[in-house]
């Protein structure tokens, strides 16, 4: 089963073009959707999660028309929104059980077992009787993961899932996803390049509603080979450099700006060839240099 998106467009009432003729084919496995904030990732995710109507285009999950056969999609869907809350005064266990029920697990005994197992798996079992409103950000996020995974979805959509998680937790979360991702379609939207690099076999870069790249991350890096240069400079020189060169990124190393610069040839004195990474791909793509 794969997810095929064709010419999806969406313009908001305020004139913002969130999706501009987006076409993607997403195979089984982990698929990364990379883009800066406001790129249209969430709009795409919500459209795939049956929560939003596009202006035009189509999307098919296998044979299922995502835009028309919404209930068919929902039966196969696990969705972790970028932002979500929970009902006040309801415990984690009750809430998860309720969502499991809404997904169709009507057998009470079976549901109880699965909920318990899922709480175990997401390490919420100890606090299962506590009201969700008292949870920390990380715990709440784990609850979100639990509810998305429950019911063995065939399409798992996770919108910025690692926001608020500490690095260790993030790793373990990826392990969990990777484990699931072997059998189903997993779409992971993020603005963190490293996530995609680590996890995804396929990816797309979206910016201002347009797909700028789609394919394997390694291919993208290969494309950039020999075109990224690096050097470290003094702070006052920064403005000069930014004006003169196509600066892909700058970060502080030992208190001094350390630049990545894009160029077909050695841009100038003091620059050394750099090992291109996905971040360089991302920034050059969204600046349309590449």
């Amino acid at each position, binding site marked *: 089963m794969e997810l095929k998106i064709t010419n999806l467009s969406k313009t908001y009432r305020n004139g913002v073009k969130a999706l501009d003729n987006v076409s993607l084919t997403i195979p089984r496995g982990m698929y990364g959707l990379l883009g800066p904030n406001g790129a249209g990732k969430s709009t795409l995710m*919500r459209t795939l999660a049956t929560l939003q109507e596009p202006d035009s285009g189509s999307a098919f999950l296998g044979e299922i028309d995502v835009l028309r056969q919404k209930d068919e999609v929902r039966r196969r*869907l696990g969705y972790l929104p970028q932002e979500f809350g929970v009902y006040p005064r*309801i415990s984690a266990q009750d809430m998860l059980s*309720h969502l499991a029920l809404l997904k169709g697990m009507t057998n009470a005994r079976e549901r109880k077992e699965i909920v318990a197992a899922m709480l175990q798996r997401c390490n919420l079992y100890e606090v299962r009787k506590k009201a969700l409103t008292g949870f920390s950000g990380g715990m709440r996020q784990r609850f979100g993961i639990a509810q998305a995974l429950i019911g063995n979805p065939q399409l798992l959509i996770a919108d910025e899932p690692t926001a608020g998680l500490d690095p260790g937790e993030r790793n373990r979360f990826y392990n969990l996803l990777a484990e699931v991702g072997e059998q189903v379609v997993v779409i992971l939207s993020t603005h963190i390049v490293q996530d995609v690099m680590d996890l995804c076999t396929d990816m797309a870069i979206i910016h201002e509603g347009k797909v700028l790249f789609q394919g394997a991350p390694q291919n993208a890096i290969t494309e950039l080979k020999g075109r990224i240069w690096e050097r470290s400079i003094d702070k006052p020189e920064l403005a000069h450099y930014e004006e003169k060169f196509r600066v892909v990124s700058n970060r502080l190393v030992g208190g001094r700006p350390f630049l990545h610069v894009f160029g077909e040839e050695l841009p100038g004195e003091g620059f050394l060839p750099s090992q291109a990474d996905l971040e360089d791909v991302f920034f050059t793509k969204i600046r349309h240099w590449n």
Partner: protein
Amino acid sequence: MFLNIALFEVRFWLRSWMVWIFLFIIGLLVFGAVSSDQVQLGGALPNTYHNAPFVIQNFYSFIALLTLLMSTAFVNSAALRDFSNNTYQIVFTTPLRKFDFLLGRFIGATLISVIPMLGVSLGILLAKYMPWVDQDRWGPVDWAAHFKSIAIFALPNAFFIAAVLFAVAVLARNEIISFVAALVLLTGYGVAGALTQDIQNEKIAALLDPFGSRTFDLVTRYWTVAEKNHVSAGFTGLLLWNRLIWISVGCLVFAVAYSRFSFAERRTKAKPVEPDAQDAIRPVSVTLARPQLQDAPWAKFVGSFKIHFLGMARSTFFVVIAVASLLNCIPSLALSATEGYGNQTLPVTYWILDLIRGTLYPFVVIVITYYAGVLVWKDHDERMDEIADSTPTPDWISYAPRLLTLMIMVMLMQSAALLGGIAVQTWHGYHRYQLGLYAYELLVRDASAFLFLSVLAFFIHVLSPNKYIGYFFYIVFLAANAFVWRPLNIATSLVRFGSRPQEIYSDMFGDAPYRAAWDWYTLYWLIFCGLLAILTIMFWPRGKQDRWLGRRRNAAQRFHGGWISASLLCLLAFASTGGWIWYNTEVLNRVVAPKTQQRLQAEYEKTYKQFEKKPQPRVRSIKYAVDIYPESRNMVMRAEQVIQNPFAQPINEIQFTVDPNYITEIEIPGASLSKDDTKLYYRIYKFDSPMQPNESRTMHFTVKSKNRGFENSVSTVELVQNGTFFNNAIGPRIGYDSGRQLTDPNDRKKYGLKEIDLMPPLERNCTTDCMDTYIGLHSDWVDVQTVISTSADQLAIAPGSLTREWQENGRRYFEYKLDHQSLNFSNFMSARYEVAREDWNGIKLEVYYDRQHPWNVPRMMNSMKKSLDYYTKNFGPYYHKEARIIEFPRVATFAQAFPGTMPYSESIGFIANINKPDDIDFIFYVVAHEMAHQWWAHQVVGANMEGATVLSESLAQYSALMVMEKEYGRDMMRKFLKYEMDNYLRSRGTERLKERPLITVEANQGYIHYRKASVVLYYLKEMIGEEAVNRALRKVIQQYAYAQPPYPTSHALVDALQEQTPPDLQYLIKDLFEDITIFSNRTLDASAQKRADGKYDVTLKVEAHKYKADAKGNETEVPVNDFIDIGAFAKPAKKMQYGDTLHRERVHITQKESTLTFVTDSLPDKAGIDPFALLIDRIPDDNTKSVTLVGGK
């Protein structure tokens, strides 16, 4: 410094929209109330200028109750803003003094809280200049009243409220608790009101009212229209004390809050539990069973219901409002369960139900309004929507469980009140538990109305772009639904959302007469709500739709299959029930809107008033054949009526006004119908040969009820399944009926009619104008014979002796014949009665009562006997062979006297509960009053002019007082007269036209011909003696009993009384009957000194003022030259209200201040002037004073 902070606070709020919106809301409410008759705020306006000082002050006195929740918002924010915005770490680390900070914020919030209250002034000032208001009803702008009200009410109330709420906010630092406190303040206010409503502790109640509203009521309760128009209450007396008390309490509360406030951060709650982060997501792979996913909508429905129910049940606000509502309801039940209708009653179930509706339902409506929004917007507000919306759940499962949750909550509140009601009944020793009635009325009847409201609220919220707009439109819709139909002159319930016929439950017939219409309208609105529900589901928000187009497209996608058929089915059912209702209410019956009704009345007067004085034949005798069909609420009355021409000229036509609710056929041999006005129900018959003087003819008429199908509202509520009661006024009335005229001067003006006095002016020695009684009907004393039939299980009653009784065709027949010619005033009744029978000197005494109401029958019998004893001894013979009291359903709450027969409402005596020795025996009194009518009205009846009711109502009142005094003693009369005086003094302030002296009272001025007459006639009896009064009454009886016209006027009585009054008391006649006389007597000082012989010299310093009032209540002081009692009382024995009288003496008082002395045998407790409060005096309590013992020799 604190001034700066206060000013900052004020500026902060002045820039926010909230203050101005609140000001606008209050302004609009008041504006509506004073500029339109449709809108009311705290009751109808008095008959004063609409901007009278009294009106201004009255609004200001209770407006704090409305602005309380608004104040909560200001005060709370002022006290807690820094905590909720987390700016306290910044603010409290500045070198700010606690004093400046707290006081500044507090004063700022107080001042801002006043602004919404100013809406009162704004509304009243603006309304005066609206083009549609009637300038005659507006006085000059009284700025002083506005400023005084702000000083007396607005500022102190804002201060007190702010102090309490500030203290709660500072101590609890929780917004919800602040709102709870505000609610508790509101309910506490209501409960305290219920606790202290009795006249005995009105002063305490007035002092205990933190807002001064009840104080204002008490201070102004006896104000006349003139005073209300020109005087405003100031900082004096009770009002001053009240304000001082509550300002002090406010200061104290603030001081406590101040001392407890600390800048330090509270210990915050422990951080939420965070398990070892290292272990956050377990690498352990738990094997998950592959779950079987199913579409099981009902399981999802039940699960969703559970989750929403738990969420609501655990929410603080719900618990708070549920508890507050029960706190408002249950104590009211316990306290008022026996207080129905101003006297003690048994806690019958329908009365408890009415109390529950009054005290619980405002909260239920709040719960529905608030939680409909919360439930619809719950997923959105909690940001749960994306997760929940992407589950495979049908849309209706988002809707139905939430609606069910709300309904179950409402029904739980009702059930708690139901249990409370049963507990209260048990507590009062009342064990007739009508569980079925409770359940039906609360959980079916009322709950269905709440269902309509809930469905509507959900619908509006689903279509709204956000919660607040949803709330706004819901409230606007409800207000429009309540107020828009009357001005539009639309009366049918078919268009007014959720509207069903009003009904009155009776133990006698249940709700049978209303049931069919109620059921059909309920079905109609249920189906409509079904349609709304379908629409709600179609438009239920799912996912993120930023455009209305998307919502519509979604709805179109959802609208398929079963939904289409369900909608079509609903539409079809809605149209057909609507059609059926329309057919029943508008084709088989008719709906007359109120304005149409008024227009017809005006037209009737304009067209036919010209015939009012036209000579018409008079009724001499009537034979009725009445058939009552209780099960179908139908009736046929056939009558053979002998009419006669009493005039010296021939009469060539006879005119009739007929009842629009019945089908009337008239047959007059030798006459033909020359005009048949089917719109105004007037008919004129022309005699082929005119009726010659003294000629008699026999005519026939038939009056048939036309109960077919059901009506929009039941018009002939006199015909019921059990408890039929109508009188002969439904028959064709000869001539013009002035009773149909519009009476309200504003209505008359609207239809271009001149203001009129309701009755012709009083004349002395009148003949031609006194040829008719005020009962009318163009008859004198008539012979009446009735054959009346009903269904086999009921008894049917008409006036007179029962001469024959038989069964025929499965129906019961009774024949009655009047023992003596009587007024043309006959009642016809039928119900399943029990009958109690006794005998008094050969007269049959009977009480016809419902099986469920046996309690007070013995008291009624006793009263009938005692009345007959007194009246036959003191007034004259009783001419009937029977005296009957007959219970009728509580569709009306009166007792009425027909010849020998007294219908008596179920609700004013049959369920009364007289169990304490000092309770006024209301039943005994009412029966004695009605029995007295057998002399006063049925033997002596007044001519149709002012003062007529003095001869019937006032004398019946006096007679009943005498019988009561004999039975219960003088102390009971003091208590009774205190209520009568209070009622008179209060009512004169609400007079819509003119207050008249007793001698020229109009027939609808009950507060004069009952209440004032009680006080005045009892006083006269005290002054000239019971025997002298009764001599005068006997003379009136001898002269006028059953006499032919001309009929007597009130002069006949007053002249007879004057004859019996000694020369030195002659001034009384003018004071009591011809003028409106008011006293202001008080004792300034009372002291006693022990004498050598053990007796006491008592010295009184008293003040006496006497005033005469005009029709509007303007008073002029006149010199005192009166004989007034002085006296002294011993200390009352335990549990007794009054002590023994130690001294009573009548003195001639000629000065405003006098010093008086007398001797008593023992030490008096109290002494003073007019000690029994017999004179009309607005403050009777200061007539006596506690006696101080001064040193002996």
